[in-house]
C-alpha cells in the first residue's frame, strides 16, 4: 500500500491549526484582560481645568 504521507501531514497539520487557533483565542482574551485592568488601574484624569478669568461681581 502506498504510504500516503500527505494524509499524515494533513491530519497533524489540522490538529496543529485547531490547537493553535484555540491557543491564540486564549492569548487574545488574556491580552484584552491585561489592557482592561491596566486602564482601570490608571488614576482617572481630572478633566479639563479651564482658566477662569476673575470677573469681579458687579
Amino acid at each position, binding site marked *: *500500500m*502506498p*504510504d*500516503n*504521507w500527505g*494524509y*499524515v501531514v*494533513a*491530519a*497533524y497539520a*489540522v*490538529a496543529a491549526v*485547531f*490547537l493553535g487557533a*484555540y*491557543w491564540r483565542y*486564549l492569548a487574545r*482574551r*488574556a491580552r484584552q*484582560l491585561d489592557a*482592561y*485592568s491596566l486602564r*482601570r488601574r490608571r488614576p482617572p484624569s481630572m478633566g479639563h481645568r479651564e482658566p477662569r478669568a476673575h470677573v469681579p461681581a458687579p
Partner: protein
Amino acid sequence: MRRTTIRVLGWLTVLALLLGLVWGFGVAPREVTQGNVQRIMYLHVPSAIVGEYVGFGVLFLASIAYLLTRSERADRLARASAEVAVVLLAITIVSGSIWGKPTWGTWWTWDARLTTVTILFVMGLAYLLLRGMIEDGERAARFGAVLGILAPLNVPLVHFSVYWWRTLHQPPSLLKPGPSMISGDAIKDALYINLAAFVLLYAYLVATRVRLLRREVEALA
C-alpha cells in the same frame, strides 16, 4: 492554579508532545497492512479518548459539584473542560476522516467511533451555545450544569446504540476501523506516550482557561 504551575505544566506538555511525535514517527514501525498512514492513530485515538472520557467526565463531575455547592470554581472547570473537549473532538473527527480517505476510500463513513464522536462533539457545541446565549452568569452556570450532567449520561447510550446500529446493519467486512491491529509493543508504547501527552495537553489548556475565566470575573467585579 498558580501562574508558574501552569507555565511548568505547559512546558511539560510540549515535551510530552514532542516525545510522542518522536515515538510515533521514529520508534514505532511502519504498519504492515496500512503503511505509514496508520501513524495518524497516534493523534486520532488519544484526542478521542481524552476528549470523550476525560473531558466529558470532568464536565459531568464539575457540573454535579456546581449544583450541589454553587462553587464558581466548579463552574469554571466545567466550562473549560467542555471547551477543550470540543477542540479535541474536532481534531478527532477531522483526523479520523483524513485517515479514512486512503484506507476506506471515502472521506466519511458512518462507522461506530466517528459517529459517536460526532454526536459528542455536537453535544459539546450545544453546551457552549447554551452558555453563550444566556446573559445572566448565574443562570448560565446553572443551566449549563444541568446539560453538563445530561450530556455525559447520554454517552454510554450513544456508544451502545451507534455500535449496535453499525454492527447489525453492515456486514463485518466494512468494519475496518483504526487500531484493531494494535500489535507490537512499539506501537502500543507510542500510543500510550501520546495518550499521556494529550492528557497533559488537556490539563494545561483547562488550567489556562480556568485561570482566564477567574481573571475575567475578578476584572469585572
